[in-house]
């Protein structure tokens, strides 16, 4: 071959990379539109890196005060920081500078949005299960870093809005018990605002966080290659294969083309829709303020938490001030949310006792409790998010801001459990619908009139390929504690953790719908299309007594299989 002796040959002579290259190019990737969410995140990060490098050529990270004499007339003669001035210059005096700035900001917003939606997809389909727990944790850290990177980034221009954000951040840091006052002096190098914060945030924004982001994101991608991508269940798709298109040429083209699509759409939005018009805000000054001061969307949930937390959470005790109305929402909320998120796969694994590798995704309906938990988390997040817009909602909808806030304060306790319950019920119903479809076929739209004048719709039976995704799922049963006595007849003692585990497992799996079996389908066909099928769709576990009164054979023993007792309906 021609290339073998050319550059490729030269390179392989020196690196022996041919083997690795063929490993890489032969990789198979399954197709699904939700798999592109992570790609959007990856590409918007790359767009941010590219445009960010451009911006550093003109941005001056300095809080030094100067008088503006640039080409934007309304601000001429105003004293401002060099950071703000240089951002104005990028927007008005550097040709195409505004476009680069807008792409940078839009891509950053898209980055966090794509990460969030990608994470939701991974959660609801159970893609975080073994062997992908590490990648879930990496993703969790990436999403936290993305928030911080975004916050630091939009604070850099030192305009009135972002300066107010930093002002609030100073208030957050102050609220940390014991060390708060020292932390602000460390961060600001003296009293707020000082001249240190802009250059410090700059080095954090362009060096520290991006370096960690890029390292972790590389690890994230490498692990995707190592694990091979997950796939949705379907005919021919199993837990031990991956069905899709090879990296070379199909996925290189699709993924590479998609990068240009994401970049192109970002550029188009940037051209048409102005984001963060810093020239309209004016330079930062601690005294003025504008109504509707809000952070970028991804910080909304933390801001919303601050708006909902009642003032009485601040109190004085032991001669000190405990400002929990601020501390809980601004400092504690983020690590708590991200820790819960990060440990979820390990929690679920503990509850299910499932130590196998999972490469087939769950359809969300087939994991009703997990989907319910996901819906609970999403609703919690959304309430906080909307709380951050309570003033805007009040103005646009002509409502009382006090009512909205009180309503959301109540909602934060009521809605998530409700979302859990509703989602779980919907999942179970959808599973029953799947059963129905398998047993009776899909609606054909053809109405048939019988000889005696009755009408019914003809149902088309599913073929084996259509049926498979609806019947392939496993339906795990709850772990139950084993025998109540040990070998000598002495009442067995069980670790508290095992009892909790049994109870949680019961919570996860007590309600379930078994997929149709061939026997049931045969029976359905034998009985004709319109007769009820004898085995009830939903089954429930029967355990004598509450689980905590039962013994477990040994703390780490195999779970006991309990006969499933048919039960009518929930």
């Amino acid at each position: 071959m021609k290339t073998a002796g050319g550059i490729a040959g030269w390179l392989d002579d020196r690196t022996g990379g041919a083997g690795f290259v063929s490993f890489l190019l032969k990789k198979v990737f399954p197709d699904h539109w939700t798999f592109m969410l992570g790609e959007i995140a990856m590409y918007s990060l790359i767009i941010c890196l590219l445009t960010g490098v451009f911006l550093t050529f003109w941005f001056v990270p300095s809080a030094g005060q100067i008088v503006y004499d640039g080409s934007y007339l309304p601000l001429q003669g105003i004293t401002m920081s060099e950071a703000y001035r240089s951002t104005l210059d990028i927007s008005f005096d550097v040709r195409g500078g505004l476009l680069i700035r807008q792409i940078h900001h839009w891509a950053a917003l898209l980055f966090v949005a794509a990460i969030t939606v990608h994470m939701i997809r991974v959660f609801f389909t159970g893609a975080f299960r073994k062997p992908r727990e590490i990648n879930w944790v990496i993703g969790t850290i990436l999403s936290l870093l993305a928030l911080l990177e975004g916050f630091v980034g939009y604070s850099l221009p030192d305009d009135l809005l972002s300066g107010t954000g930093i002002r609030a951040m100073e208030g957050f840091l102050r609220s940390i018990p014991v060390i708060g006052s020292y932390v602000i002096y460390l961060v600001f190098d003296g009293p707020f605002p000082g001249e240190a914060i802009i250059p410090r945030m700059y080095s954090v924004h362009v060096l520290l966080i991006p370096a960690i982001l890029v390292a972790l994101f590389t690890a994230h991608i490498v692990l995707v290659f190592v694990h091979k991508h997950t796939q949705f269940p379907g005919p021919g798709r199993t837990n031990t294969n991956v069905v899709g298109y090879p990296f070379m040429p199909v996925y290189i083209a699709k993924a590479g083309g998609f990068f240009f699509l994401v970049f192109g759409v970002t550029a188009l939005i940037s051209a048409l829709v102005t984001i963060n018009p810093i020239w309209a805000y004016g330079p930062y000054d601690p005294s003025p303020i504008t109504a509707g001061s809000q952070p970028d969307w991804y910080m909304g949930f933390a801001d919303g938490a601050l708006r909902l937390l009642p003032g009485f959470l601040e109190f004085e005790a032991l001669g000190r001030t405990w400002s929990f109305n601020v501390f809980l929402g601004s400092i504690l909320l983020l690590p708590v949310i991200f820790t819960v998120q990060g440990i979820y796969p390990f929690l679920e694994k503990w509850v299910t006792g499932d130590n196998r590798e999972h490469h087939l995704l769950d359809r969300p309906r087939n994991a009703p409790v997990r989907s319910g938990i996901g819906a609970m988390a999403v609703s919690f997040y959304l309430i906080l998010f909307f709380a951050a817009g309570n003033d805007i909602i009040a103005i646009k909808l002509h409502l009382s801001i006090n009512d909205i806030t009180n309503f959301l304060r109540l909602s934060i306790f009521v809605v998530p459990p409700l979302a859990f319950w509703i989602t779980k019920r919907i999942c179970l119903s959808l599973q029953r619908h799947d059963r129905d479809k398998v047993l009776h076929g899909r609606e054909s739209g053809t109405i048939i009139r019988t000889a005696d004048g009755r009408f019914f719709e003809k149902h088309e039976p599913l073929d084996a390929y259509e049926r498979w995704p609806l019947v392939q799922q496993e339906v795990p049963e709850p772990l139950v504690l084993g025998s109540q006595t040990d070998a000598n007849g002495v009442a067995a003692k069980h670790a508290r953790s095992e009892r909790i585990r049994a109870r949680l497992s019961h919570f996860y799996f007590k309600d379930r719908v078994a997929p149709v079996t061939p026997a049931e389908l045969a029976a359905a066909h034998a009985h004709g299309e319109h007769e009820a099928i004898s085995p009830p769709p939903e089954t429930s576990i029967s355990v004598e007594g509450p689980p905590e009164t039962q013994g477990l054979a040994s703390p780490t023993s195999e779970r006991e299989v309990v006969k499933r007792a048919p039960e009518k309906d929930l």
Partner: protein
Amino acid sequence: MSDEETPHGGGTMVEDDGAASRLPARRGDAGHDVAVPERFENPGLPPHVHRLSDSNEVASKRAERQVAMLFGLSMLATVAFLVAYFAIDYTIDVFVPGIGSTNLLHLVLGVTMAVSLLGIGFGVVHWAKVIMPDEEIVEERHLQRSSDASRKKAADLILGGGEMAQLGRRPLLKYSLGGALGLFALPFVVQVAGSLGNPTEVSELAETLWDIPKNPDGSPGAPIRLARDPELTPIKASDITIGSVFHVMPETLKDSKHVLEDKAKAAVILMRLDPSQFADDERGRKTQEWGYQGIIAYSKICTHVGCAVGLYEQQTHHLLCPCHQSTFDATRDMDVIFGPAKRPLPQLKITVDAAGYLVATQGFTEPVGPSFWERNEFVNE
């Protein structure tokens, strides 16, 4: 949404990958000797359906032209970008329906760049979808874990390496290395932690420009005039009508060496109410006493997280913080009536001087702005 749809594709089904299965829920081989299996079996890949462009030369030619056209469009747009970059005057604004007035150069550069990128993107994806092979390939997975042999080999290498280094036999080496490694990072940590912050007394948080400086003989200095922000002109009490609001700074801000830092603590909002509008209780009376003929002055720095409390509602005499909507009642000593703030805004005690200008006779009696750990120490009753 699509989660609910049937994904396509194929292969042969192997339920378990062989990892230790502890799940009882699997319906095993019970159905072996029965005619009807207990579970459905994976039917395997559905038969492949060829695309029109696979068999029809005209269709594949058309697809080729479409892709090339998209690439061509991208090139045209790139050229247009370059022309626009040099040709368009950057001061021209245009009106675009639905978007409003926007800078022409910015608009043209953005749109041409977008078309240039989208042309490549759509072209390549179209190419992949209609011309590149669309038959799915099955790749087998393997357990993630290494074989027992390679695990043992790795363990032996690590343990053997430790053995060769005589780690086990020479505890002195082990512990002294541990100590050195444990300590070496300290200088770096101490350097950065020790030097990041300018050593400052916490009491600084409680000091503002309104604190009256003492004369050399120890007696309190002259009261400080209230001045308009940002002009820094003094304010005559008689200029303030009922219902009006002033944003105020101490007149001494003129001589400040740290304007923003001082502003961040000294910002004051001043308003005038009809004396009958104050609440008829102790707090309402205190509000009036510290003011002058219904003119009252309060710190503008929110006690929640420090935003400027800039929204005054003239009819209800409420002061609203635009950041988190804490609401303060001006008729009752800025009592918090709603929102996340706990404490009222501190009041600045004012009167008029001989010339009729408003002055502050003393600084704030408590720290302004958000709470902090040591705050109690600086509250003077």
